[in-house]
């Protein structure tokens, strides 16, 4: 690792204008501190009009984006960083775009033979043009209840609703469309909720221990995610070695199928029969004090700061090639 160590400034990017700005700011602060603890030079910045000038004025910078949602995760920022020819931690613009859009990522992962929920992605215009009543009825018939309704491009469970009957579906759709123009309606999968982080440092993806999520309220919503004490986390998950291996394999396959870069986190439900079902993948996973990825890193016996620094070094080394 030493010969490829990056010695320049690291720009930790957080904030932005997405609905997850607050989460992003917390992720950014945590990663920035972890990198400073490793003796790295860190500049923290919001995603704003001064960013291009800031990066342009630095010698050999590496950008570490901790933006969740919006242009930080949909490939837009990555496109700009490519254009500026600057090293950054994360995925290519195309991979970020693929993984962020649940309507695209799900089918791609399913094509690789991974179990995914039956789902349909619908722009709100579709309901207006075809008539909501007929479509809502068709969704109910095709997928059955309960259903999960979520925005196609959002995170942190924002805009997500579990729907138990056709009568609840319209309101849930409107709730999801408050976050974007496309909503995904999928069959609700019950089982053990786990998340598996993937890191790629030496060319080969490695799965971190699965984190099992047991929200006190029963629902892993925004409050359960970001209020310490509201959710019980078990790392590694209390599943058999066989299931744990299947989850790890699923996360790595999803990472590879979507062409993701040096890190990702797959969200998985393990059915009562032991089959893991892929829900979604995050190319810029949360790094807050209550986030899953850092817990998995620490459970693996790796210092979080050491891993962040290694991700920076990997990005720097890749940029040199």
């Amino acid at each position, binding site marked *: 690792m030493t010969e490829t160590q990056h010695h320049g400034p690291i720009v930790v990017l957080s904030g932005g*204008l997405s609905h997850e700005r*607050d989460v992003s700011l917390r992720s950014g602060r945590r990663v920035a501190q972890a990198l400073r603890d490793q003796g790295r030079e860190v500049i923290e910045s919001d995603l704003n009009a001064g960013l291009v000038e800031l990066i342009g004025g630095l010698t050999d910078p590496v950008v570490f984006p901790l933006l969740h949602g919006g242009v930080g995760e949909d490939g837009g920022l990555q496109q700009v960083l490519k254009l500026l020819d600057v090293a950054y931690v994360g995925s290519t613009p195309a991979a970020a775009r693929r993984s962020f859009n649940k309507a695209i990522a799900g089918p791609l992962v399913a094509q690789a033979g991974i179990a995914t929920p039956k789902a349909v992605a619908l722009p709100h215009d579709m309901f207006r043009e075809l008539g909501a009543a007929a479509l809502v009825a068709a969704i109910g018939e095709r997928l059955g209840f309960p259903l999960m309704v979520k925005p196609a491009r959002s995170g942190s469970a924002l805009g997500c609703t579990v729907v138990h009957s056709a009568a609840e579906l*319209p309101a849930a759709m*409107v709730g999801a469309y*408050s976050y974007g123009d496309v909503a995904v309606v999928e069959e609700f999968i019950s089982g053990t909720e786990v998340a598996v982080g993937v890191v790629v*440092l030496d060319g080969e993806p490695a799965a971190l221990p699965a984190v099992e999520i047991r929200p006190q309220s029963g629902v892993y919503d925004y409050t359960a995610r970001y209020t310490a004490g509201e959710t*019980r*986390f078990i790392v590694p998950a209390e599943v058999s070695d066989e299931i744990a291996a299947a989850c790890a394999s699923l996360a790595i396959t999803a990472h590879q199928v979507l062409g993701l870069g040096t890190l990702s986190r797959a969200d998985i439900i393990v059915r009562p029969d032991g089959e893991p079902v892929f829900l979604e993948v995050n190319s810029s996973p949360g790094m807050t004090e209550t986030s899953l990825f850092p817990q998995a890193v620490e*459970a693996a016996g790796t210092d979080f700061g050491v891993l962040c620094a290694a991700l920076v070094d990997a990005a720097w080394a890749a940029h040199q090639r």
Partner: protein
Amino acid sequence: MSLPEPSRRDTRLDHYVDTYAERTHGLQVSAVRALFAVANRPEVVSLAGGMPNIADLPRVELGASMDRLIQERGVQAMQYGAGQGELFMREHITEVMAEEQVHAHPDDVVVTCGSQQALDLVTRIFIDPGDVILAEGPSYVGALGTFHAYQAQVVHVGMDAEGIEPEALRQAVVSLRAAGKRVKFLYTIPNFQNPTGVTQSIQRRQAIVAVAKEHDLLIIEDNPYGLLTLEGQPMPALRSMDADNVIYLGSFSKTFAPGFRIGWALAPHAVREKLTLAQEAATLAPPVFSQFAISTYLEEFDWRGQIVAFRDMYRARRDAMLAGLAEHMPEGSTWTTPNGGFFVWVTLPEGLDSQAMLPRAVSARVAYTPGTAFYADGLGSRNMRLSFCFPTPERILEGTRRLGEVISAELEMNRTFGIDPGAARHHDLHTGPAPDIS
């Protein structure tokens, strides 16, 4: 980098999760609060917060004045002080209160860390868990938070365009006490109420004071905005009508600057004694340097003239908001017309839910405070509070334009999905639209 075999860890990420006091439960991160993080970005027109605009204060002269204060009186100004507050501060406070016909002795004033702390101290000395506090429906979100912290039960009393309805107040007191509830006090904001902007008429004030006296109900009068009247003269305070049964809370946060964190409580003698002891237990003393600074400001600057300047500035912003609302709000929307203060209370067309709509608004770069924040019982889903105090008139106009588009889009979405206009989107049957008081 190789990853070693892990050992299992079972955690809720909070070692003290089973140790907290019961009143701490419910202190949680919320998605709505998180959305406000976006509102702080300059691209967003925030009509959500209640920050006063203090950019026009004479900062250069204030700087020189503070410089002299530190050099000449810094040894006292940076020392511990009296729990009740410094005498010179309390004397100045009585001068300020006289502007609203409140005549009081400095001995009956307790200086606090903003009027928010006065509210906290009053609640602390009067409320046991389960006690009832009556408040306007809707009421100030910061007060509801304090009441919740002391495990009070807040019961809202209906209001109309003239404030709390006296008969509703009477019925609430009688029925609650008949049910065995301990009704401790009425919390009210008579002037330019937060969040509605409604001001109690003189007749209404007299009636409220009379009902409270008749039923031996203490009144907590919170009056942070009283001097910021935009039409006519300040109204007489409730305290001016009944010195024995009203605890009056005041603040310099809106008439000067909130950063000094100086407010006060004016209370009958026995209550004042307890407030002082409670203050000493909480902080030893209110901020001494801030008391010196504010007293210096009151002595050396034309503070009355500054309030007139504030009024002119806020009037232009209120007028911009009312003009923007008239131009851009879809049919079916109504709103209040405040004669002062910072806020307009909007009632949305039927079927809309301001909290559910907030993400759409934030995407459109405009923010507001959903009405449910101002109720302890889940009402207010059809309402929103708009603040005109901080953005410029041009930004306020732009904000109302964006808001109009957001509401129209949400209405269109509801029409598409055939959502019943008479039904709120909350799943809880006890929630729904609040009364239209505009």
